[in-house]
């Protein structure tokens, strides 16, 4: 079922359709069994979400990237007091340190959505800072794609089904990176490869 129709189902259930649109949609619903099944499923999902609305608003348990995110955003990181610990965790995640850093060096966090067409991704950071990236690799999961980050052919980060089973490549925290040229490769399960050149540039 295409996305437009799925959106229309949501609009119908949320009563966002005009009277004419609603009539046309319901007439189709009467005789289209696939649409009927989908609407039933969406009613169940919507009703379930409403019944569990308190759970939706509760604080989620933190996954690995969430824990890193929280740690990196904490003031202690800014003062460098826990830099060694954070680096140790990052090393644990990536297998290797991305770059040796002085303990006092502050990190800035950037949320980036990777370009799809192999364009360059340029990130500027102040001269005395490094950058930690919260990456969205098109919302894929390690079941569907592998994410690798390298510098001068040296692998810095590798997230695949082998070493990070069932992890979303979405809000995934990588780094810290100092100025330099990096390469991000996304290898999808269907064989498609999306290379992105990442340049961390000093401001």
């Amino acid at each position, binding site marked *: 079922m295409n*996305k437009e129709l*799925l*959106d229309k189902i*949501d609009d*119908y*259930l*949320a*009563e*966002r359709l005009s009277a004419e649109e609603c*009539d046309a949609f*319901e*007439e189709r*619903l*009467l*005789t*289209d*069994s696939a649409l*009927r099944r989908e*609407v*039933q*499923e*969406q*009613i*169940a*999902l*919507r*009703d*379930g*979400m*409403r*019944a*569990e*609305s308190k*759970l*939706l*608003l*509760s*604080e*989620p*348990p*933190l*996954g690995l*990237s*969430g824990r890193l995110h929280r740690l990196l955003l904490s003031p202690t990181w800014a003062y460098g007091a826990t830099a060694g610990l954070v680096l140790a965790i990052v090393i644990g995640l990536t297998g290797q340190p991305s770059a040796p850093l002085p303990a006092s060096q502050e990190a800035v966090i950037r949320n980036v*959505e990777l370009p799809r067409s192999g364009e360059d991704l340029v990130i500027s950071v102040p001269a005395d800072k490094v950058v930690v990236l919260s990456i*969205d690799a*098109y*919302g894929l999961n390690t079941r569907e794609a592998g994410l690798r980050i390298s510098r001068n052919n040296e692998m810095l980060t590798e997230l695949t089904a082998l070493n990070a089973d069932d992890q979303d490549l*979405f*809000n995934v925290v990588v780094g810290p990176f100092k100025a330099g040229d990096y390469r991000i490769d996304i290898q999808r399960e269907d064989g498609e490869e999306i290379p992105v050149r990442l340049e961390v540039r000093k401001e």
Partner: protein
Amino acid sequence: MPPEVLVEEIGRGNPRAEEIFYERYHAGLVVMLEARTRDRARAEDLAQDALITVLTRLRDTGIDYPERLSSFVHQTAKYQFIGWLRKSVNQTELLPTVDEFGGEAETVEEELDRTRTRHFVRQLISEMTVARDREILYRYYVRDQAKAVICEALALTPEHFDRVISRARNRFRLLLEQGS
């Protein structure tokens, strides 16, 4: 069987045509009325009433535009719903009393269905580790906010929003399939 033929055959008293008519419209009417009433049992009742009303009309006098039978069925169901809505608004004060006697209690099957759905939804939510994704679902499904409003409020791209919703839908479907 095309609608014109169906209408003609019901007018002639063909019982098989009546069965086909029922099978063609019953399930769709229940879903449509459940979406409107948010109550499966009530939707079943209203659908039955609508089908009987249309059948009676087809047996007695027929309809002016037989090729638009679906539209006629839809309009009839809509009026049934509006009639029920008026009645229920007028009788609000009676509802708690009726409920005490279990007048509209859900069947065991419906209760199981609801419990199962809630279990899957809880599982789906517990798998979401990003607070903002949960907020997107809350705004969209609970507060019925439009996509554009949510994207603006949370500074999201439409693509990001679509991914979160699509992932939730797909995961829910998978859980339902695995659980059935």
